């Protein structure tokens, strides 16, 4: 007699439940996803004892038609897809038809639902079998109550963690759903206490505020980007607020939460040099794309996704985040509250620029011949000549200088209007130095308050931007080798290298076949750091495999950072007033003046209000 038998449906469902229903949080996830797919605008999740005693999810969605109720609990029964081709453009969260049978197989489940047209249905299932069936009121929507989860799978029950852990997992699930659907109101209630609530206003920042607090939400910068196939938007929180873990980066593809390493990396790339090493941002990213470009049918939990044109998407994400930060002032404030938005585009009172650069043009070295002002103008032009040549003398000279330039620019206002106040100039506020502390920190002020600048970090940033470009320019000289270097690659690496052979030759790496999976190099470019040639060539190959191109700038970035650090002024270094001014001037021309290449802040800001608070002038 044969030993192979077809499993009973109940047993099959229990096995499937092992994949779908891993822990109480998975039940919440599946039920909430169903609610969303049913176009609910408000979802209430009530939980007792971390979900072990009871999970109840109530929504105001479409509801079930009476005849659908029983079939919904059969395996592979779904309303979300109908035919083969639907699988390739899935627009709903679920589609496998597994959730309800799996959950009902391992619990005591009660369903109360109505589509608002027919009388409502009340269904009770135990271990996957319907044990009671009745009518209910016809309030539109669905409510599913799951009790005694895992009552018949003791092994699973044994491995559940504490109530707190399970609740934490559930909160995560609800947080993600709320971030994915800001227009849906979510309420999570644990033992009659509201743990989390989003207002369903459709504003992502409101959801972020509900999860991380108002301060974080205020520090979040919106970003967006668009290409032919993708639309990305989201909120990137100020780098000053960072986390040690990477789970605070939320990635949603067509409102589905996924984990994807390349996309995560592209977000980090957007934060490049703004983030301290080992710290990760809080960031919410929504990607909208044609469902046919993404395959989410990788795993029952649907956390992974296969994306077509992934590189293009990653580049778009990095660029969107980077440009969002480039519009902002990222100066950390002392109270830990990040600086408010930099530029309000409208209603800005124009101010005169008193900086010496605005007036010291070549035209001013010539005496200005206005008939009635000739006398005074002559005097001015002589004085204005002063600031061009730096003097060693004390700060008094500096004061004179600004006084003269003030009058000069008042008289000749057309000069000020002509000077364009372009975008990067305005990111960095104009700072007027006060002095230096401990030979390390520069104090400066403007109308917005006090700024403290780390002189080393500031010059490091300036030099880094210089060397970053410089190390990318490589000479074309190659060094011949007496004994060639041999590289062993895996089969797939070997294929990539041979594919890009021409490209590699252009940057001076001429790989020749040497056996099945080995390649040799008889010469290498001279710019490779001495003693680390082999390591660098391996890095180049890996970069090529990952990104399909080689960026020498990126490879040598470490070198650029090191050169910048070594060639910058250190702490304990006295600076003359004119040197401080020169440093601030070149800092204001930097692309990213707010952090050093290692992500530490260059300057911090005290607002006058903060100062007043410190001295109890205000309460």
């Amino acid at each position, binding site marked *: 007699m044969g030993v192979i038998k077809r499993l009973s449906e109940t047993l099959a469902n229990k096995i499937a439940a092992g994949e779908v229903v891993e822990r109480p949080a998975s039940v919440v996830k599946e039920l909430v996803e169903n609610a969303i797919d049913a176009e609910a605008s408000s979802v209430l999740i009530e939980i007792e004892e971390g979900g072990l005693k009871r999970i109840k999810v109530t929504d105001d969605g479409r509801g079930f038609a009476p005849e659908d109720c029983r079939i919904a609990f059969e395996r592979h029964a779904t309303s979300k897809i109908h035919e083969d081709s639907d699988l390739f453009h899935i627009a709903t969260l679920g589609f496998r038809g597994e959730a309800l049978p799996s959950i009902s197989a391992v619990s005591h489940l009660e369903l109360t639902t109505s589509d608002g047209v027919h009388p409502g249905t009340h269904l009770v299932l135990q271990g996957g079998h319907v044990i009671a069936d009745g009518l209910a009121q016809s309030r539109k929507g669905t409510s599913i109550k799951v009790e005694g989860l895992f009552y018949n799978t003791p092994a699973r029950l044994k491995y559940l963690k504490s109530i707190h852990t399970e609740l934490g997992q559930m909160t995560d699930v609800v947080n993600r759903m709320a971030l994915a659907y800001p227009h849906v109101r979510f309420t999570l209630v644990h033992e009659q206490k509201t743990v989390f609530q989003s207002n369903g206003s459709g504003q992502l920042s409101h959801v972020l505020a509900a999860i991380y607090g108002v301060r974080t939400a205020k520090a979040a910068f919106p970003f967006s980007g668009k290409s032919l196939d993708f639309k990305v938007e989201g909120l990137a929180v100020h780098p000053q607020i960072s986390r040690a873990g990477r789970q605070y980066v939320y990635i949603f593809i067509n409102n589905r939460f996924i984990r994807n390493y390349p996309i995560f990396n592209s977000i980090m790339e957007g934060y490049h040099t703004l983030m301290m090493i080992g710290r990760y941002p809080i960031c919410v990213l929504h990607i909208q794309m044609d469902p046919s470009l993404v395959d989410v049918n990788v795993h029952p939990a649907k956390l992974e996704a296969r994306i077509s044109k992934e590189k293009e998407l990653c580049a778009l994400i990095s660029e969107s985040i980077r440009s969002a930060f480039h519009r902002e002032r990222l100066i950390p404030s002392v109270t830990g509250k990040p600086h408010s938005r930099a530029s309000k585009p409208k209603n800005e009172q124009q101010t005169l620029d008193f900086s010496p650069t605005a007036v010291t043009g070549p035209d001013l070295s010539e005496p200005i011949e206005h008939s009635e002002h000739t006398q005074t103008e002559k005097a001015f032009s002589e004085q204005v000549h002063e600031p*061009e*040549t*730096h*003097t*060693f*003398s*004390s700060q008094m000279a500096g004061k004179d200088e600004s006084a003269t330039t003030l009058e000069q620019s008042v008289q000749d206002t057309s000069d000020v209007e002509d000077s364009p106040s372009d975008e990067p100039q305005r990111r960095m506020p104009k700072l007027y130095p006060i002095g230096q502390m*401990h*030979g*390390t920190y520069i104090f400066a002020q403007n109308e917005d308050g006090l700024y403290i600048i780390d002189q080393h970090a500031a*010059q490091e940033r300036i030099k880094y931007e210089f060397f970053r470009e410089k190390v990318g320019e490589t000479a074309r000289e190659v060094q011949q080798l007496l004994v060639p270097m041999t590289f062993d690659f895996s089969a797939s690496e070997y294929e990539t290298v041979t594919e890009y052979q021409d490209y590699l030759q252009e940057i001076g790496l001429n790989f020749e076949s040497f056996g099945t999976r080995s390649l040799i190099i008889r010469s290498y470019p001279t710019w490779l750091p001495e003693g680390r040639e082999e390591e660098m060539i391996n890095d180049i190959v890996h970069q090529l495999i990952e990104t399909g191109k080689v960026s020498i700038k990126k490879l040598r970035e470490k070198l650029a950072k090191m050169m910048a650090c070594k*060639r*910058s*002024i*250190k*702490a*304990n*270094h*006295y*600076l*003359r007033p*004119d*040197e*401080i001014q*020169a*440093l601030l001037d*070149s800092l204001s021309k930097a692309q990213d003046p707010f952090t050093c290449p290692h992500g530490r802040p260059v300057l911090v800001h005290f607002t006058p209000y903060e100062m007043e608070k410190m001295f109890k002038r205000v309460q």
Partner: protein
Amino acid sequence: MQELQDSNPNAALAMKCTVQKDKLADAVNRVMKAISSKTTIPILTGVKITSGRDGITLTGSNSDISIQTFIPLEEDGNENAVVHTPGQIVLPSRLFSELVRKLQDEDVHIEVDSRFIAKITSGATEFSLNGLDPEEYPNLPIINGSDAFRIRKDLLKDMIKQTVYAVSVTETRPVLTGVKWMINDGKLSCVATDSHRLAQRSVSVENGEDSGTHTLVIPGSSLNELSKILDDDDEQLVDIIMTTNQILFKSNNVQFYSRLLDGNYPDTSRLIPTESKTTIDLGTKDLYRAIERASLLAKEERNNVVKLRAEGNQVEISSQSLELGRVFETLVPEHFEGDPLRISFSAKFMMDALGKLDAQSVRIHFVGPMRPIIIRPIGDENILMLILPIRTF
């Protein structure tokens, strides 16, 4: 020299001169002491060369100091340089100093065009260097004060050596990174302290009587550089001119400018105890070497503490390291007076102080285990070194 620069407004155009290589190399070398590769004003990494009617001037400058060296056209009947066209240029200093040193021919010919490109020829070698606009080079401070005095060069070097080592090396209290100079009634006294130790020295100066009383604080690093660029012609006098925020040292074709430090220097006179409970005379070298040996172990413990016990006409120097072991040495003092004593101090501080003294023997005054230690060379009342002891438990 100052007038020379001012009289040449268009000097940038086409400078042309020939200089003797050794003279040029020597002058550049001195100026280099004032040029730092780390600066926020890029032009300050360069050396400024000005050729005028009387000779050629080189200038280097950083946050603290500026150095100007002058090569006269003729000196002691020898021809040093020929100026064909007066003018000025700023050249990258490190490169320029290296190339001058490596040139083979005796004469160096420098020619600058209006785009600030300097052609440097010597024998068969020709360099073309991209220079910078000398108009952008910051002006040196103008010093024409009458507050001046003169001092012998060897004495100046000695004074610097014996005080500057005690200045503070951190900028936490900026004024302590300098040496305080006080000129009063023909006498110059110098004090330096980093708040753990103190060094003091006074000398008589020439022309000091009419300059009145002055107190100024000169950065320690400036004085270190000054003593490096002063040549060995010890008999010569150095002219020192003071203003409120700058000091100028003039010697033998070299002008050395230093900024002065702002702020009030603490009153150190009341820190120096006048009484003495234990007085010991010891050979300077003997004591130095004993402490040096003891510090071998002290260094390992990282605190660098050496113990001294004086009792019954005998001085014991000891130190120990928990891991390595201990060292113990006895010295017989030339003279012993007062109470027995046990005290601990930093070996480094003591060696720093003793190493700066030329006298055969030193007299050390102790007031108690927690009070300052005073070291004076026997036979010279103008020098005083003070060290604070370390409290041990």
